[in-house]
């Protein structure tokens, strides 16, 4: 009793330093952790197979990453709001077919093909956002449903046919190989998207609202944040980016049937979470999400290079996911424990 009272005399201000340092430390550790794991994989693989770090392979990894990172940026923005978009794989698949099909069907120029992909993504994103935000249905259920619906539409549209390389112009199929000062153009373009998204999330009120909504939806309501509009916006962006990614998918794989990008959504969610975006929203960054995509693609390629079966790649991605989520949870527990200890010291 008397102990509690005397401790209460200590000013509150001095004690705020330790939890803050803890949080900062963990957050930095998180981004830093991705880079360390990344470096370790690159180094270990390079020691075994030097060709892993030659220009061609690095360019290959970056090009592969570009597509995943693009989708991951949109997904990260959705997850930040304590939602999830499981339909991105289906959107990429549908967009890839519908957009690339414009070459054969209408001899459309490349710009139009990209716009068609974007439009497909926008439509899907608007549907997801409207049902989730306005209909107030949990996004997990909504996007699980649209995952199948969009894939179903894809299957009907494609039928037994497929888009083949011969119908697509070489200028389109060469996009993944294009470089500027040795760096793949796709990687640069996606880096710009990541930078714009990061800037938006940090410097615009509506961007900060996304974090606030995920951090505490009830508090967001009391703060007068237009939750429905913001969540809707996040889904539209996620859909739009997935739509554009579909066109990139088409340029990379050339042959597109109704199974294109099947299961991509889980790899994307994995990349986002490994990249440090909390699965229950409120924290993380699109840069982290992009790094997460880079890490998973690098591991993929590294295991391939040293001759490990691609089956293992998925297991390792899963393992990283568990590590990332466990780390999140451990941090939460550490912090609430710290809070409780502090409250006890201050007395009730």
């Amino acid at each position, binding site marked *: 009793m008397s102990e509690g009272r005397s401790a209460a005399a200590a000013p509150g201000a001095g004690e*705020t330093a330790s939890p803050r340092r803890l949080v900062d430390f963990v957050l930095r550790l998180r981004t830093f952790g991705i880079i360390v794991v990344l470096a370790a994989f690159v180094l270990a693989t390079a020691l075994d197979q030097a060709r892993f770090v030659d220009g061609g392979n690095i360019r290959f990894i970056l090009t592969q990453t570009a597509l995943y990172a693009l989708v991951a940026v949109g997904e990260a923005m959705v997850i930040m709001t304590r939602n999830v978009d499981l339909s991105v794989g289906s959107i990429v698949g549908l967009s890839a077919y519908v957009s690339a099909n414009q070459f054969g069907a209408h001899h459309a120029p490349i710009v139009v093909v990209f716009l068609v992909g974007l439009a497909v993504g926008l439509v899907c994103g608007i549907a997801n956002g409207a049902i989730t935000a306005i209909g107030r249905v949990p996004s997990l259920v909504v996007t699980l449903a649209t995952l199948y619906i969009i894939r179903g539409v894809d299957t009907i549209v494609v039928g037994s046919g497929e888009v083949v390389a011969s119908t697509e112009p070489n200028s389109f199929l060469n996009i993944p190989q294009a470089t500027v000062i040795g760096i793949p153009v796709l990687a640069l373009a996606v880096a710009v998207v990541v930078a714009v998204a990061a800037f938006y999330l940090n410097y615009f009120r509506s961007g*900060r*609202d996304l974090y606030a909504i995920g951090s*505490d939806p009830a508090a967001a309501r009391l*703060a007068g*944040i237009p939750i429905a509009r913001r969540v809707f916006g996040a889904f539209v962006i996620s859909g739009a980016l997935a739509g554009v990614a579909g066109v990139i998918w088409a340029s990379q794989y050339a042959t597109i049937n109704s199974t294109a990008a099947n299961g991509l959504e889980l790899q994307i969610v994995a990349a986002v979470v490994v990249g440090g975006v909390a699965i229950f929203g*409120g*924290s993380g960054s699109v840069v982290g999400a992009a790094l997460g995509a880079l890490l998973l693609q690098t591991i993929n390629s590294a295991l391939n290079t040293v001759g490990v079966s691609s089956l293992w790649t998925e297991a390792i991605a899963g393992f990283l996911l568990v590590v990332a989520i466990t780390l999140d949870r451990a941090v939460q527990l550490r912090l609430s424990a710290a809070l*409780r200890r502090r409250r006890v010291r201050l007395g*009730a």
Partner: protein
Amino acid sequence: MGEDSGTAAGGEPILRLIDATKAFGAVHALEGVSLELYGGEVHALVGENGAGKSTLVKILGGVHQPDSGMLVAADGSELVLTDPRDARDAGISIIYQEPTLFPDLTVAENVFIGRQPRRGRRIDHGAMRRQTRVLFERLGIGLDPDRVARGLSIAEQQIVEIAKALSFDARVVVMDEPTAALSAIEVARLFGIVESLRSHGAAVAFISHRLEEVFAICQRVTVLRDGRRVMSQPLEGLSASDLVRTMVGRDIAAREHVAREHGEAVLRVQGLTRAGIFEDISFDVRAGEIVALAGLVGAGRSEVARAAFGIDEYDSGRVSVGDRALRRASPRAAMDAGVAFVPEDRRQQGLVMDLSITDNIALASLRRLRRHGLLSAAVERRFASDWAGRLQVKYGRLANPATSLSGGNQQKVVLAKWLSREPAVLIVDEPTRGIDIATKSEVHRILAESASRGVAVLVISSELPEVLAVADRILVMREGRLQAELIRAEATEETIMAAATGQAHVLAPVLEEDAP
């Protein structure tokens, strides 16, 4: 109420609520309540639990819209608040009992969320940080604007909320029980801030159960009872007992009480402590006795019961049943020792809503109903219909889901579920919350009958008439400690309320009162 009190206030109120009524379903939370908030004045809003204070606060904050009645601003125009943003734009700031910060955002961002200072269209993080620091200096606290809100103490969270109010120059600041979780020093600091808000001309509405605080900082008081305003006047000339009498002053229902033989102490709680929640709680409940744990919401009553039953951990102390000490944090051990616990929230914790009435009643007794390890539907049904009959549950068919029952009958099913285990100790948390009056008295009868059969009953209740109707002995908790122990003969609504609000120096104190 039209006359002015003669404090710093000018003639007209800054904010006036006129004749507001709000109902949630059949429950009338507010009926024709008016409130006048004057600049330069701290206005106390007091009343028992459930008197309608929180609803009033949420109307002022734009969270709820009144069914009828209106809000009028200082210039005489009507204010329509359709959401919290409107309230903020009207210069009204609400500091809720549970602070509403974003744990993942920085303190500065929490202060300015939705209103971040901008350069062009971009948020100016530097300016936001500087302005936050200035606000904190004005409040005399050295919080770092860049730290995240996660991990802040309740007191610090409130400071952030107050900084938010200052940042948009709120003319009306409503504080809903801001001191409930604060230490004496933090309360003193908060009072300093309230005083400075007042002297700057803001109207402060202050809600507190601690009457000494009301007298320390308020100039005017409004008392709510059962959703109606029963008093609104300057505080000067009133005493604490005036307020207590006004708060509880309803007709006290006739109490018929059958004397019961009390046996040996069955449930023994000794020195139970959980840091920051409750402290040094000791009491006995004897066979055939009903003991009520009274006190205000947040005094730690439910927490004590949960810890005694083993749902929550406790730091030190001892719980025993008969001469058997209970393993801590093990509801299973408590149940094996013959303790039954009926939780507060029957929808979430007491019943499986989608299961049938039969299944719900039999659920806690399945082991006893087994024959050769198997359950027979017929045995279960007979068992359930027997207990449903004893407790006079009104149901359509026993096979219907629990959702088909009214709230009162759901509560009877929960009671049947536990009483059918024939427990030695029955702990009931808020047994009649949200139940109509007729069923209420039936629940009281069930509790009395259980006690007559020799069960030791511990009832937690926020409703004083209920406490007085059922209890043989009343333990009053205040801020995590046992404040008073009243035997039936000396208990009145006034004595309980006085103990619960810390006015109980005249009563036999269980513990020395050491707070200032």
